[in-house]
């Protein structure tokens, strides 16, 4: 049994790797194709002097893309064509950590708060699990929920600018605040998804059977050994992949916030690369962005596998 589980896990990881490779090839090829449409721009003399050689300039975009791919096979992201001929890895790897941490923090914060809110909302609304709360608690909960709705409706960059005005100098506090701003855009999505999944779960016959057999319904939030805990575990089977699927949206927001705050993340080389049509730099940023998204998505899938041993995974 244990051997079969390990095999399934390995096959899940293998499938994720294959899909990632395919997506990287497809997205970088299409990007190179689009960059090839753009006409060459006028450049300042110092950039021209340190830019691509005459031989490099005579190559078509697809030849340069091929060179980049060959370099990638040797774990070399190539040299920047217009950023002083430096190694691309020097620009992107130092900036990747910030983008990755911001994305991960935002996913964790928004998923934790959104799922708690959604699960509580579903438990509160289900007469099978909990009788209606008193008026004061109801009003307090509604105020909290609608406040989150309003935060969710404010564009991320406006929240970012407002945060700039009240920003503290402590880096960790700032990081958490930025992550919360980023996560706010997706928190209500998580809340609605988890509420809907929990409500569906409460309609299942096993919930009524368990209650009839005397199992405790549970409090405001699911506790181990209660009916709501079992419903939560069953709902999480669908919830975890959905959380993973929202990572790209958060990643897009991270790039927006990095530009607003002028943070040294992936958006900086992305902007420079696009404006200067620096093919290796743009492709490398895209490669890392796809990798970040796929790694987080794969992690949610593995977590789903660990917490739901009974679930059938399509390999």
């Amino acid at each position, binding site marked *: 049994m244990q051997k079969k589980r390990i095999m399934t896990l390995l096959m899940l990881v293998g499938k994720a790797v294959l*899909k990632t490779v*395919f*997506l990287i090839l*497809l*997205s970088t090829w299409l*990007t190179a194709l*689009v*960059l090839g*449409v*753009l*006409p060459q721009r006028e450049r300042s003399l110092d950039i021209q002097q340190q830019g691509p050689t005459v031989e490099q300039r005579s190559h078509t975009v697809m030849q340069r893309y091929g060179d980049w791919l060959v370099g990638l096979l040797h774990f070399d992201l190539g040299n920047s064509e217009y950023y002083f001929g430096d190694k691309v890895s020097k620009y992107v790897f130092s900036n990747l950590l910030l983008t990755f941490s911001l994305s991960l923090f935002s996913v964790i914060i928004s998923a934790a708060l959104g799922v708690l809110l959604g699960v509580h909302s579903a438990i509160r*609304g*289900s*007469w099978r699990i909990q*009788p*209606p709360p008193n008026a004061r608690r109801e009003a307090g909960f509604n105020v909290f929920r609608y406040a989150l*709705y*309003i935060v*969710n*409706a*404010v*564009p*991320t*960059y*406006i929240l970012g*600018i*407002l945060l*700039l*005005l009240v920003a503290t100098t402590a880096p960790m506090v700032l990081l958490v605040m930025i992550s919360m701003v980023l996560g706010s*855009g997706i928190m*209500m*999505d998580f809340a*609605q998804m988890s509420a*809907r999944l929990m*409500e569906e779960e409460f309609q299942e016959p096993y919930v009524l059977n368990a209650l009839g057999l005397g199992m405790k319904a549970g409090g405001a939030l699911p506790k181990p050994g209660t009916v709501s805990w079992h419903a939560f575990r069953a709902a999480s089977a*669908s919830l975890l992949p*959905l959380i993973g*699927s929202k990572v*790209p*949206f958060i*990643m*897009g*927001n991270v*790039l*927006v916030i990095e*530009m*607003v705050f002028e943070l040294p993340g992936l*958006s900086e080389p*992305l*902007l420079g690369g*696009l*404006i200067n049509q620096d093919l290796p730099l*743009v492709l490398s*940023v*895209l490669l890392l*962005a*796809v990798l970040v*998204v*796929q790694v987080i998505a794969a992690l949610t899938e593995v977590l789903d596998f660990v917490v739901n041993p009974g679930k059938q995974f399509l390999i």
Partner: protein
Amino acid sequence: MLESYLLSAVSALAVLVLLAWQVRRRKNRTALIGLILLLPLLLSPTITLVAGNGLKNGITEYRFDRFSPPSVHGALGTDARGRDVLDSSLVGSANTWAVTAVALVVSVLLGLTFGLLAASQRHFVSWLAGVVMQFFEVFPFVFFLAITLAAYRQYGYIADVKQSASAAAFFIGLMMGLISMPYLGRVVERLSKQELRNPYIQTLHGAGVPFWRILWKNILYHNILPSILLQISLLVGVIILMSSAIDYILEIGFGDYGQTGILSLGKLLAHGRQSVVFGEGLWAVLTPAIGILISVLGSSLLVEGLTRRRVTVKQ
């Protein structure tokens, strides 16, 4: 210019009538508040169409009339470029709706198709549809839009094509539709797979009904359409937030590439970003900011109200 608003005015009024009918049927107060909040966005194309050439002067830039406070000459004052805030916000809202409407059509057509194909029992078709959706998921939306919009603008230069506002709205809407397609596609896939587990599907199979007919008629039309319609309402908010974010980013970070696009609420916010930081002429950013806020909040509340089940508590 005004002819191009005819289609978006008709589509906005059609959506308004459809939503009003749903709200009246469900008799939910939250949904009613959501619909009221969505009214400015949905009515702006009609007002723009009716006001006609009167708006043209309002959105022309007058450098000598910067940051005039609200007065009898201009109810909401003028912005940093000397434009009338009310007029430019109306035109911005109408353009934002035009982009949203095109994006919704593209997203619904592709999302339904790929979502249903991903739920198909043919492994290759299902895998291919999944990969197509994942391709648009992994591409950070800022990156995808920036690169395609840059190419679109350069194409206009190369081909010497005069890019009208309606052509730009169509192109941006098309791109928005492509990147928001997986949101809907994943929901369609999940709901269809859930529905496919029901015993009646086996019965239909046994009766010789073709699989595509089961997918389109029995699953989509008869069973999951209400949930899909609610998801489409939620997409309105997502698309407005994404389009305003991309307008903002293009404006602040992409130099002459960033001039792509049309006067939208996001563009107006980007033009007035200095007002937020320095506190000068805040009325110039308040109107577009409130426009985005109430539109997104309206769509969220509408979904919340329409999805909430009426729970009857039997003591």
